[in-house]
């Protein structure tokens, strides 16, 4: 079953700046009221890396991680579904999904994953 992307971004009601994650006051104007928004559409890959020395809690050999910007300007980190960075390029389109990103205390933890688009 496909899961909905469960992160919430926050748009400042005073100046329109978009935040993710949550801040109690707007990073630009100190406004305290935000409109909750969902990241929308596909995303653009801003930067990425493959991590080979993973922390405790990961059994795989490596993990590709990146930062993206969604069509509505929300920026976030996530795991990238790619075998190698050779398939990736800064600025390329990626398709977001909400999937298990790690296991903690025997339970799946869900988060953002991005699939490179041709």
């Amino acid at each position, binding site marked *: 079953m496909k899961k909905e992307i469960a992160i919430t971004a926050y748009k400042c009601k005073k100046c329109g700046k978009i935040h993710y994650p949550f801040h109690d006051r707007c990073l630009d104007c100190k406004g305290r009221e935000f409109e909750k928004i969902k990241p929308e559409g596909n995303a653009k890959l801003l930067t990425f*890396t*493959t*991590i080979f*020395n993973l*922390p*405790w*809690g990961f059994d795989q050999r490596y*993990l590709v991680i990146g930062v993206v910007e969604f069509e509505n300007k929300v920026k976030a980190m996530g795991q990238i579904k790619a075998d190698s960075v050779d398939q990736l390029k800064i600025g390329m389109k990626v398709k977001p999904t909400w999937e298990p990103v*790690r296991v903690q205390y025997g339970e799946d933890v869900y988060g953002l994953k991005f699939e490179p688009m041709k």
Partner: protein
Amino acid sequence: MRDVAIIGAGMIPFGRRDEDTLMDMLSYASLKALDDAGLGDKSVDAVYVANMGGGMLQHQSAIASSLVDRLSLLPAAAETIENGPASGASAVKNGLLAIASGYYDTILVVGGEKMREVTGWRATDFVATMTHPQAEYPYGITLPGMAGMFTRLYMEKYGVTREHLLAISLKNQEMGTLNPYAHVEMALDRGGIYDSPHAIVNNPVSADPLHLYDLCPVSDGAAALVLCTVEIAKKTGKPYVVIAGFGQATDTHTLAEREDPTDLKAVTLAAQQAFAMAKLKPSDVSVAELHDAFTILEIAESEHVGFFKKGEGGKAAVAGKTRLGGQIPINVSGGLKARGHPVGGTGVAQIVDIVWQLRHELPENRQVKNAEVGLTVNFGGFGNNVLCFILRRVQP
């Protein structure tokens, strides 16, 4: 504000210190600094202890209270300062302000970490706990991973190449072989880590485009300083060091929220504040210790503090401008790359190395001739909490 001097500096060799507890290391370094200051059995007014991981790695809290007791410095005021990998410089700053304010006269600042008590996986996880707990940490991001993403952008924007990064690894590990306190005392060979087809195993990718030898090791270690008023320092009759300027600034917690992630705003601001306070400019600096947890950081920081224009730092390193004898010698100690990076200890260790430089007491092969002004950058988080110090030699 009163001027503040440094009259004592001490360090223990970094590396794997299996036989020593965290408290052992903090004590040894403290005694070295106290003895160096010539305090004899005199006490200090206060003790600031920089440590990031005692709670997580050693399951120990209230480390400063324990240390004053162990060192028989009771009833000196004492506290532990945790500010990620910038804990060391933060503790020095707190000492500086406490003396500058006129409240205390003599302060011991000590920073240390025992990271090799746990396996590499746990140490990596411990360091990663400074990332955002919801927006970053769950994905498996690590500090080397952050640095990898930063490097990719920096390469794209400023044309930094692996050749530039290599110059930093080679220089710093070469300098490390001359430093008896360094964790890694092995000079690297360009062929072995880059040119030869065997380099793929010797120097594998850690977080691309960064390779193993672009990263600092995980270390145990501690370093300490004695700060005091200038009046007390003068009485020693020996050359001493004053803290001419400092600056500190913060930046967004997540990398994603930075307008331009290649712009290390906190480094620029911290350096600007420090130079303004010291009434000096980058060209006045004789020697610098920059926070090269990753080779790219030495390049980026050398640009952000103003030694080189953006995009010029890597070329300057390749041209030898940052070597001993060059335009601005950087990380003559070997830096974090070779000295090692016991997170809470690093900020203090950098200043200890600069103090030795400014007192002109290092062996010729590591001494910057006639060093008058030194600069340090201690880089916390991934650049979200940065301190810069400017130190000046005083000849009484």
